[in-house]
């Protein structure tokens, strides 16, 4: 199965050799950062093109919650059904010098998450699109303890 991003332009895919994938944001002339990337924004009354940048891959978990029932499909496009659905978590991660980004989290049990804990970006399989490709989604995972 070919792997494709759930949507183009959200994160670098496929990652360049030797590089980790990163979320793609837009940066304005005054330093303001946008996610997802968009071509233009109005800054201080003037419309300008935004520069494409990679966002930091690590940040602190700012808040989180869980989802215990399968979201209505469509639009939900997860690779599960009403019976196989597993609760998931979602949160905002504070990316230093950038912004708070909303994302699925890899730890599905909210009891195991703590506000403030370090998180890092991962790209993982999500579902299957109408062409049979595996869709990839961005998420944040608890940073593994250094041994």
């Amino acid at each position, binding site marked *: 199965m070919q792997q494709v991003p759930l*949507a183009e332009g959200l994160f670098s895919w496929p990652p360049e050799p030797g590089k980790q994938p990163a979320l793609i944001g837009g940066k304005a002339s005054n330093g303001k950062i946008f996610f997802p990337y968009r071509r233009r924004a109005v800054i201080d009354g003037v419309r300008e093109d935004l520069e494409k940048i990679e966002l930091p891959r690590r940040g602190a978990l700012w808040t*989180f919650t869980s*989802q215990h029932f399968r979201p209505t499909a469509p639009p939900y496009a997860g690779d599960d059904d009403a019976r196989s659905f597993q609760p998931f978590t*979602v949160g905002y991660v504070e990316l230093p010098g950038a912004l708070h980004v909303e994302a699925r989290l890899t730890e599905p049990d909210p009891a195991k998450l703590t506000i403030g804990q370090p998180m890092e970006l991962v790209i993982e399989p*999500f579902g299957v699109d109408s062409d049979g490709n595996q869709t990839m989604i961005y998420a944040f995972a608890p940073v593994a303890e250094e041994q």
Partner: protein
Amino acid sequence: MTEPDVAIIGVGLHPFGRYPGKSAMEMGEDAVYEALTDAGVKWEDIQALYAGSMEVKNPEGIVGLLGQTGVPGRAVFTGCATGATSLAMAANAIRLGDADIAIAIGLDKHPRGAFSDDPSVSGLPLWYGQAGLFLTTHFFGMKINRYMHDHGITSATLAKVAAKAFRNGAKTHHAWRRKPLSEDEILHAQVLNYPLTQYMYCGPNEGAAAAVLVRADRARQYTDTPVYIRASTLRSRREGAFELLSPSFGLDIVPGPTVEASKEAYEQAGLGPEDVDLAQLQDTDAGSEVIHMAENGLCAHGEQGKLLAEGATEITGRIPVNTDGGLLANGEPVGASGLRQVYELVNQLRGRAGDRQVTNPRVGYAQLYGAPGTAAVTILSR
């Protein structure tokens, strides 16, 4: 107090709940008749109509049931703040001299289950919904989770809010969820969106409400107990506020629209939080009621735990909140909820709230909040 220019002389409501076979318009018709009877005016006297609904595209089409008099009828919609907007627009029509008697109507009939849609209806990309992020319930779980972390609020306080809602709902014959539940049952129920359990969330349902307005200087021709509109404000989210349905938000966090709408409302009314005798606060979930107590200036951030523990927001307390059980006990027909808040405040201010009656209230306060990050505040007084 500033001199009021618009008064409410009649209110009506169709009980919120589920009514198979009865349309939202038909519920609206019932609410309007109650309001007209209460006001002592006929439908033919209405000179401007403002109607709000999420499910019904043309709620002003209710003239088909009430009487096609040619009255200027307009639909309004501002998400969960719709009820306040229909009231505000009706009041503005009177202020402008477009009408001497106006009516605000809200009606809705939602399908079962959480609100769900294609993200494009909110200007969001498809992937956001595909990923399972396009759910307003996430925001409420996340907002209260962070708030509990920042201000030391506990789950026990959330359970107290919900228990109060159902206790008050039991005293409200027109409420939907009228069975009292213990704090324990509420705390240990199924978690929907951590830390909120299923009994800490309102549910979309069906219902309607209406209010008849006139010029303040003519109100006493209709009733001995007019209720005056002292303030009506609405604010949308500012850049940097942490609000619903946001794939991202900035590092410099600013206060939300409720804080802004509330400040402006107190200024418009020439009143302060200390003047408020009872409040209707948006309780989409128990966490929202807690947060809104502070955002509307009724207490300091973090003080809510103590206030709930000592019963300060009970009907008999110092600052009664959601005396009719709020959204938690009544459910949420989006177009109508704001006018249900007004219905309860007006009845309380007129001494008609039966065994929910707050002692001698003079000032009532109502706040709404919803997608896409909009808050509306209404202040009423005797």
